């Protein structure tokens, strides 16, 4: 009987944990990361995923001339500080938050519209014997309404 109960528990665990991790990311993006955009207006797009230490993500977006933007990139508390770089079409690094004490935001504007790449990395901790942590990482954009 105990075996069956354990199996049932595992089944529910398998079913609901993936959904919960997504739901946590939505809540994390909405309630935590979006706050980093203030006073900019969030564009409404949702980009969030569960990443594990050592994993990377990339985002491609066109930014328009004459607009003022804020990028906010946040990770769950259990993750190390998230690294991010902004690159132009020639792969030149325009900004790296490693040089700015791992800031979560970057404010910028462009003279001409450009497609940029945002490269995000969850660094690994020094302790290799420890199990790598996973958590939500959200990438959000805000602009100033003119």
């Amino acid at each position: 009987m105990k075996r069956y109960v354990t199996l049932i528990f595992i089944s529910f665990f398998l079913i609901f944990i993936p959904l919960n991790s997504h739901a946590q990311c939505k809540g994390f993006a909405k309630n935590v990361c979006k706050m980093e955009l203030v006073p900019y207006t969030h564009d409404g797009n949702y980009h969030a995923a569960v990443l594990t230490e050592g994993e990377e993500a990339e985002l491609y977006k066109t930014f328009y001339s004459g607009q003022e933007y804020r990028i906010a990139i946040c990770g769950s508390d259990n993750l190390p500080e998230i690294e991010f770089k902004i690159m132009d079409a020639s792969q030149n690094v325009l900004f790296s938050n490693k040089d700015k004490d791992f800031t979560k935001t970057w404010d910028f504007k462009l003279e001409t519209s450009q497609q940029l790449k945002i490269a995000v990395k969850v660094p690994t901790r020094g302790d290799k014997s420890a199990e790598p942590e996973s958590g939500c990482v959200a990438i959000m954009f805000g602009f100033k309404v003119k």
Partner: protein
Amino acid sequence: MSIMVNKMFTRAVFLAFLSMFLFGCKSGNQKQPAEESEITVDVSELNQDLFQDINEAKQIFYSLPSPLETAMLIRSAGAIYDEDLLNNVDNSGNYTTNKSMALNLGIYTCDLSFASLYDQTQASISYMNAAKKMADGLGILDAINDETIERLEENINNRDVIMDIISETFMNSSSYLKENDRTAIAAIVLVGGWVEGLYLATQMVPDSVSLKNNKLVDRIVDQKLSLDIVMRLLADNSDNPDVQSIQKDIDDLKAIFDKIIMKTSSNLETSVDTATDVTTIKSQTQVTLTPEVFKELKKKVEIIRSNYIS
């Protein structure tokens, strides 16, 4: 009791396998390898280069301008509000398929944003209701509920709050769709909003006007940069028949956008305003656009959009 427990066990194992199948096999946003190309000053080739290392195993996101950003871009280019250009809310009853509801969720959200940016209070409420109808039809639970409409009505004269409500409802819709593995629908919603923005902008440029030093025309040309992202977003979901039909439209648009020559400086420079901590990305872009090509683009966008709202 033992039969009951055995049944429970069987169900538990079945559910475990079902869950592993449903959630464990998800491919996420990883993309197929992209072709490498040499760096030149042509924007199309530069953008290909940007995608060059995409074959590595990592999460990839393609971000199109949201309907709110699209409407804001049109407004900041000096467009004048013209309600006749928007998709009539009375059409909302005509949309019954997932494709038409998804496209028109994007279209109505763009129209809602556009009306709100011009402080069109009654139109904003009507378009929020039309967007709600599309979201409800798509089974997007509680993205826009009665409370949202009430909040909108209560704050109808506060543009900042209205923008926040629109942004929140759009995020609710897109996060719900992505969380429920309906990424094809999420992509169609975005493309609907993008096409609506392109339609509004092209319609607001009279045939007789000069294309040079025209901010609205500049914004339209800029969409050549987003076209790449539209195509990749759709390619990711190309197993969906609705997406396949939209890809044909976008291919037609690409053929016209390819006639617009856009050259940009290959190495961008940055400067930081120490007072505001805002970085300016410095660059120069040269655009060649003939009136014939613009006319062709305007016509094609009109046809595509007309199909989407009919």
